[in-house]
């Protein structure tokens, strides 16, 4: 699986311009967690996306995939990325659909966090 070894995405954001937000989704009990970090610039484009992940290989692949997909996208576009698309792109077996659901949740939670921050700033 190509995305499993995409270590470039499994790291911290580091020095990058823009507003940084982080989402933590999943459960310690089940052992499936995605911590997604995104940096959003003034044009509301996602400059950079990185994640830390704990879970099966499919969860890791889904986390790397969303980082790749949402980079350079407008947040309104990134918000549309859904679990069905992720599952299809990664050819996930039925029993592993949860990985796509978790990944979608990570993106939406991070964007919602960014939007809440904007409201707060106003």
């Amino acid at each position: 699986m190509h995305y499993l070894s995409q270590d470039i995405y499994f790291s911290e954001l580091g020095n990058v311009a823009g507003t940084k937000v982080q989402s933590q989704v999943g459960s310690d009990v089940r052992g499936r967690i995605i911590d997604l970090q995104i940096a959003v610039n003034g044009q509301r484009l996602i400059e950079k996306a990185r994640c830390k992940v704990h879970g099966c290989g499919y969860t890791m692949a889904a986390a790397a995939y969303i980082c790749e997909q949402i980079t350079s996208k407008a947040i309104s576009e990134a918000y549309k990325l859904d679990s069905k698309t992720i599952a299809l792109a990664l050819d996930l077996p039925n029993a592993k659909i949860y990985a796509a659901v978790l990944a979608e949740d990570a993106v939406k939670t991070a964007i919602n966090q960014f939007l809440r921050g904007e409201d707060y700033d106003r």
Partner: protein
Amino acid sequence: MAVEKPIYLDNMATTEVDPRVLEKMLVAMTSCYGNPSSNSHPYGWDSKEMVDQATCQAADAIGARVEEIIWTSGATEANNLAIYGVAGAYKRRGQHIITCATEHKAVLEPCQQLEKQGFQITYLQPDRGGMISLEQLQQAITSETILVSLMWVNNETGVMQDIPSIAKLTRQKGVLLHVDAAQAIGKIPVDISQIPIDLLSLSAHKIYGPKGVGALFVCRRPRVRLHAQIHGGGQQYGLRGGTLPTQQIVAMAEALTIAQTDLTDECQRIEKLRHHLWQGIAQLPEVYLNGHATERVPHNLNICFRFVDGEALMMALPELAFSSGSACNAMLTETSHVLRAMGYDDLWAASSVRISLGRFTTMAEVDSAIELIVAQVTRLRGISPLWERFCDQEAPAYAI
């Protein structure tokens, strides 16, 4: 271009066929293709003779009598025949069966089916090491108990039950004992003439034989009655219908003989490999061995790498072939029922993998495995938020 295959470390799932076994099997397939039940021509006579000789050989290997061996398609069928067979034959005497929560699904499923038919099943809960005690068993036996079904060596953890003592207890109590020995043969000495076991399941493919053949030992003295589960041409004393597969039987008999003959040397060699592997892996922090520290076969390491998902580790290591739990459950998303029954939580179980060594595992392979595992566990922990949090919590202690 040939793709290089990964290093095979999944010998408790199945084993490579031993060339000595294959040789015997090929002879049977090419020169003896008659139906052993055809009694009107030399093709049948030759096959029957070959099957009879192999049955003698298999019986000798485990200390049984020739008439006590019933050939099956594998250990799953042998377990089914033992459990349903006893339930059918003894249901008027009682409808209580005792087994253990860490048994193979080939025992648990038939028990669950019998529960639906009104049988009462007691699932003994093992301790943290995977062991059940004699006291536990003794307390569970009632006047209604007809059968105790326990595995000798657990397929996921390699933990051994004290079957000799258990067998003495069940014989004293007048309760039948069925032992799933699929993982015991070739790993520990098995001599049925010395232990009062009533039924014993065996499998060929766990001992470097072919898949698709197994056997059930059915004690004749004292005689165990069974209801047949597969009806057909009346083969095997009417207990298991179906044409006897000559080449499979010949192969399994040979595999059994080799397993028993080479037992001591092989176990010593594998013990050294396992020790080396464990020493290499245990250099990592937060690595734990699941199951009893000493009451286990040398072939197995069931290891919890905390903060690493077992499935992710397997996928990150295409150079190695091992498993997260039992191969039979590999398609399920649920964690190992064995580890959960031993008291481990889901996260622990999901972080555990089974590495099993075998006859053809080499020290060079073990060295490569150590290097690869250490590197990938370190990498996966580096990207795990759980590991990060754990290290943050531990930081003050490290700072001192």
